Every structure is written in structure tokens, then in C-alpha cells.
């Protein structure tokens, strides 16, 4: 319980710091954030949007791992973990898309630009939309678990192709250079610390959400099995 309270305070501090710390041309004080040409205050999105996208990726990855585990062990508990993680991944992916496109309106001029990352998150949303459509179309716990795990794996192995294809078709708009240049992180220490705090806070939040969801689904399954 104390851990969760701590997480709440932690994330509140991240939000306060992320929004209120001033941006200056020459950061001298410990709380100064660097000025990024063309982004200005919009650079602060990195504290919220990037962790959401990261959590979505993490959640889908964990869902995939539990799907594979289910196929090899055939234990429904793995399926519960897999589907709970996929649901959370979908929520965070939608949040990342919405926040990203709101930001894009003010930075790139329109809500949707088919930037490589926008396209890949669009495909991810399609895949997991299809995943849940498939789950709702199957009766029988084992069958649903197997087929959806198989589908998630097939989608998981084809999705990386976009990494090779997309750069050929469109060019990227994401302002990576402002934060990472030539493979090295070019944020100033204050920004980096807040960013890492936000990243770890969001990750912890994800594991907490996953934990509550899994416990709930387990109870439901238990009751469901007893009733039959």
C-alpha cells in the first residue's frame, strides 16, 4: 500500500515538474529546462507522451510473451495475463495516439500526417482491435486462448516489417534530434532526470494496473469454472 501511495506522489511530482519548470536559453539553475528551437513549451510532451508509447510497447510485448507461454504450457492463467496486458496496451496506445495527434496539430499543422510512427501505431491499433474482435467471436476458454495467442504471434512477427518498409515510403517528422543526436542523449540533466522518473513511474503504474486486472480476471475465471 505504501508503495502505491509513493507511486502516486512520485507521478504527481513528475507532472508538477514537467509542467512548471521554466524553459530558458541557457540553463543555469538546477530546475532549468533547455530551450529547443521550434518546440519551446511543446518539448514538455516528452514527459507524458513518450512514456505512454513506451508502456504500450511494453504491454504488447508482455502480452505476446504470455501468449507464447500459454501455447507451450496450456495454463489459462497465462492467457489471463496475456489478455489483460493486451487491453492495457490498447488503452495506452490510444492515449499515445490521441496525445500525439493533438500535439501534431500544433507542431506539424494537422492532426494526422502518416509519419512512420503514426502509421505503425495505427497498424498496432488495427492488430489489437482485430485481436479483441477475434476473442469475442470464439466461445470456450481454451479455444479462445489458443487462437488469440496464435493470432497475436503472427501479427507480432509481421509487424516489424514496417520498420524496414516505412522509411522507404515516407519521411519521419518526430523531433528525435532535439533529444537524441547521433545515438547519444542530448537532453540536459534536469530534463533527463524528469524523463526517466516519468518513464519509471508510468512503468510501475502499468504493472500495478496489470496486477489489479489479472487478480480480477482470475476471480472471474474461478467463479465461472465453479458454476459450470
Amino acid at each position, binding site marked *: 500500500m505504501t508503495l502505491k501511495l509513493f507511486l502516486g506522489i512520485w507521478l504527481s511530482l513528475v507532472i508538477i515538474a*514537467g509542467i512548471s519548470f521554466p524553459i530558458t536559453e541557457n540553463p543555469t539553475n538546477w530546475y532549468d529546462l533547455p530551450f529547443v528551437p521550434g518546440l519551446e513549451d*511543446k518539448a514538455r510532451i516528452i514527459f507524458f507522451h513518450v512514456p505512454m508509447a513506451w508502456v504500450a510497447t511494453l504491454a504488447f510485448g508482455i502480452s505476446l510473451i504470455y501468449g507464447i507461454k500459454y501455447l507451450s504450457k496450456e495454463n489459462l492463467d497465462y492467457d489471463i495475463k496475456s489478455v489483460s496486458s493486451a487491453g*492495457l496496451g490498447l488503452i495506452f496506445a490510444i492515449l499515445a495516439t490521441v496525445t500525439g495527434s*493533438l500535439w501534431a496539430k*500544433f507542431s506539424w499543422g494537422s492532426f494526422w500526417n502518416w509519419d512512420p510512427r503514426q502509421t505503425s501505431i495505427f497498424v498496432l491499433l488495427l492488430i489489437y482491435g482485430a485481436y479483441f474482435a477475434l476473442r469475442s467471436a470464439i466461445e470456450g476458454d481454451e479455444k479462445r486462448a489458443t487462437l488469440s495467442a496464435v493470432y497475436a504471434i503472427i501479427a507480432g512477427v509481421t509487424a516489424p516489417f514496417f520498420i524496414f518498409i516505412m522509411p522507404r515510403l515516407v519521411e519521419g517528422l518526430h523531433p528525435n534530434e532535439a533529444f537524441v543526436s547521433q545515438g547519444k542523449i542530448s537532453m540536459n540533466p534536469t530534463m533527463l532526470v524528469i524523463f526517466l522518473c516519468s518513464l519509471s513511474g508510468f512503468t510501475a503504474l502499468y504493472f500495478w494496473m496489470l496486477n489489479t486486472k489479472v487478480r480480477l480476471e482470475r476471480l472471474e475465471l474461478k467463479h465461472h469454472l465453479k458454476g459450470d
Partner: protein
Amino acid sequence: MYEFLSQNSLYVVLLIALIGWLGIVFYLFRLNKKIDKLEKMFKE
């Protein structure tokens, strides 16, 4: 609205943080609905 936001982009970030919060509230609502359903099932 658009004018104001593009001049004060800090509020864009504020909106973004707000959307994140709304996502978590949405998750809580869903969890709550599930718990309601489960409670009803256990009562029967």
C-alpha cells in the same frame, strides 16, 4: 481556442497530461464495472 493554444503551447502539454489522466479514469471505470459484475455473480 486554436489561436490561444498555439500561442500558449504550455496549455497543449497540460491538455495532454489531462488526457493521460482521463485514460486512467476510464480504466478505473472499467475495473469498477467488472467488480460490480463479479459481486453480482457471487451473490447469486
